[in-house]
């Protein structure tokens, strides 16, 4: 079963990317990623660049609205995501608990709606 893991990081988490060679949070993340891949649970994912680099686009009343910044302003921001393929929600939760961000930020798990997606991907 596929899940998306949305990783909400604190400002200090994001700061740690400036010193990727030494920071323990980055080292923990490298190890976590390795463990996910080795266990066959990792489908794909990526870290995201800083909230300041986000742009949000809306269309209202025929007018485009483009604004600097993410959809929602919050102390914790979406720092990355991963797509997991695991046997059950229990396994997904174990992985979420292992995520280094769980200790300081938050990790959201959401099942992917494969059934609905099948409507799009068709011959």
């Amino acid at each position: 079963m596929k899940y998306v893991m949305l990783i909400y990081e604190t400002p200090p988490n994001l700061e740690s990317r400036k010193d990727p060679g030494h920071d323990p949070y980055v080292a923990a993340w490298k190890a976590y990623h390795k463990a996910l891949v080795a266990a066959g649970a990792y489908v794909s994912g990526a870290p995201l660049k800083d909230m300041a680099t986000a742009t949000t686009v809306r269309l209202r009343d025929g007018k485009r609205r483009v604004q600097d910044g993410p959809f929602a302003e919050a102390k914790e921001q979406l720092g990355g995501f991963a797509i997991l393929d695991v046997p059950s929600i229990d396994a997904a939760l174990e992985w979420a608990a292992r995520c280094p961000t769980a200790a300081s930020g938050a990790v959201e798990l959401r099942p992917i709606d494969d059934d609905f997606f099948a409507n799009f991907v068709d011959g």
Partner: protein
Amino acid sequence: MDDPIDDAGVRRTIEAVARASYGRLLAYLSRETRDVAGAEDALSETLLAALTTWPKDGVPRQPEAWLLTAARHRLIDESRRRRVRTEHEDTVRLLTLESATAAITEDTFADRRAELLFVCAHPAIDPSLHTPLMLQTVLGLDAARIAQAFLVPPATMGQRLVRAKRKILEAGIPFELPRQEDLPQRLDAVLEAIYAAYGLGRDEVAGVDQPGLALAGEAVWLARVVLDRLPDEPEIHGLLALMLFCDARSAARRTPDGHYVPLSEQDTAAWSAAAIREAETELADASRLGRIGRFQLEAAIQSVHVERAQTGRTDWAAIVVFYEHLVQLAPTLGARVAQAAAVAEAHGAAAGLAELDRIDRSSVASYQPFWAVRAHLLRQAGETSAAAEVDDAYDRAIGLAQDPATRQFLLDRRG
């Protein structure tokens, strides 16, 4: 005599009675109808009612008897309501309740908590629910708190518990101690479920993840409940000894600022001598009963470890022998990995790594202790280990850890 009714005092009394008696009351109530969920509802309504009437009328002389009688009346009323709509099985239940209600006036009633524990760990119930059921029914913990300990969403845990209790009723699971011939297996299921609540990894290997002593006190308490009813079962003594040995070291496992301290580096002065004494007594009681088992062997291993407080060293050769027996009785991943670590201490890193290699690699893809031990042994084996292999093993152990303190310890060792 006109004492002012002390509301706060009454509230405290109710809370105290509820906490101390919940399990006994629930076990007694649900045994008659086998309807655990119905009994829980009746009991919690009764406790609420007590909160209203006791401040006005005063706390009864026999609070437990009052609660039991009131809860049973609620159960009878509920049965009557249902009987109007359904059929004869409720009649049987109703008659059972009515005839039994007359009897209760004493303030001590038979303790049926052990029966309830055996019900919770019955083979017909999903093993992953044994521990949660015990915690909810015998200890009165709420589903949300149990959910936290087991890393399950609260609503999901609630639903699973409801389904399990329905299963107990529908499958006709009896509320009695198992027959002698069934006892070893049934008891093992109960003890395993209690140990699962204790929740500690084998901390004799440096870097093994210890997500936290989630419900350690509760687990010890449950073991004592079972021991009280079955004092001549050696494995219960063994489990209690095991948990007490682990309790004894809890203060030494972390530095004041929360850093991981491996067993070999723990300050033995910080170990609780009282807990160790009690553990040794339980282990001695177990061995007098003359039937070895997995929990006694685990406890014996811990007993060797705590000797370091007296002798300054660890008798790894003795531990290796105990693990040989343990792995024969109960070849769990945890035991086999710990055995490899012990073999390494007694016979060198290469011997330990050879033991690890006998474990099917696909079964440990997500098993943190395997990688913690492997990393440790590869590092100890020195130049015979490729640097990339050592780093890889550490990375796996780090990536699989849930406890930040374990992660940091391994990160520091990885370098």
